[in-house]
């Protein structure tokens, strides 16, 4: 079915309702004389269309329309009653508070940033590294010395003399 045929079939339904203008009526009659498919379709539709044309448009009752109108008016009244979040006073207060905060942030002296390795020369960094290595080595030496001292004191105070002598000699070798 061509899309034009559908238009003619709609016109045929309008004709059964007596709503088709004369020029369209003429065009429809001419089309139906040429198109068998449309002619049979229109004939088929005509019977049912007459039944449907007997169904009237029923007027929407006035109370329904009044209910619709009053609901809309109530909605508008409620919307007007609802206090807005940003009244002019609140808005101006909020704006001045934000302005004050920004001013404090801008005007306050910035805290000096912590020194980083980038603030020193290569020679100074190398010197510091060597100093750190030396202190680490010294600390390790002292720890080992103290370890020996602690072991010796434990053996002297808590071990029997025979074992102590043997251990003492081995400790010297160690």
């Amino acid at each position, binding site marked *: 079915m061509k899309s034009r045929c*559908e238009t003619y079939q709609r016109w045929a339904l309008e004709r059964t309702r007596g709503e088709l203008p004369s020029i369209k009526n003429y065009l429809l009659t001419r089309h139906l004389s040429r198109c068998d498919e449309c002619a049979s379709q229109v004939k088929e539709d*005509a019977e*049912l269309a*007459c039944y449907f044309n007997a*169904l009237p448009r029923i007027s*929407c*009752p006035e109370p*329904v329309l009044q209910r619709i109108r009053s609901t809309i008016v109530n909605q508008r009244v409620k919307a007007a009653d609802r206090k807005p979040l940003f009244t002019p006073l609140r808005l101006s207060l909020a704006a001045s508070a934000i302005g004050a905060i920004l001013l404090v942030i801008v005007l306050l002296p910035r805290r000096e940033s912590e020194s980083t390795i980038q603030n020193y020369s290569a020679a100074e960094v190398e010197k510091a590294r060597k100093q750190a290595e030396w202190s680490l080595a010294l600390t390790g030496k002292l720890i080992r010395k103290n370890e020996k001292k602690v072991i010796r004191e434990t053996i002297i105070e808590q071990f029997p003399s025979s074992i102590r002598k043997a251990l003492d000699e081995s400790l010297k070798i160690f």
Partner: protein
Amino acid sequence: MNEKEFEKLLLLHKDRIFSYAFYLLRNRHDAEDVTQEVFLRYWNNRNNVEKKTRLAWMMRVTHNRCMDLLRTKRAQVTKERYELNIDSLREHLASEQDDPAVSYEIIEMRKMLLEAMDSLSEKTRSFMLLYFYEGLRYREIGEIMGESESTVKVSVHRGKAQLKVALRKLYPEKAERYKNEITM
């Protein structure tokens, strides 16, 4: 969209929305609730709906809401579900038609159609209403019901066949007489 424009829209589409909901639901109170809900939903979403697609949007919401209601009511099958407010229809008709003979014939056709429509599924009933009663195109029906154009085409075709069968089954003589009168 301001309230003035909304008022225009309300007056323009109120009967269309109400009638569609009424014929789908067959219950005046439910149709009233659905119409109210559709327009209020539109008002709350008015900035998100394009001007071109206003009616399609409202019809889609109406359709979906009706389907939801029918689904929930399916469990509680009552007489009311199929009840048609004949009095209001007669009243409506009386204001339109002065010839009582014509009115009787139209009322009879209407009764036949509504009874035959009861034999269709809710979805097929919607397809039929949107195609014949609202006079919408397949593409427009697809947009409302969330179906492809080809699906709509097939469904409408099947719906027509089912409706004709139902009419002939329920009212064999009258259906044949009307058919001959119409196709003559």
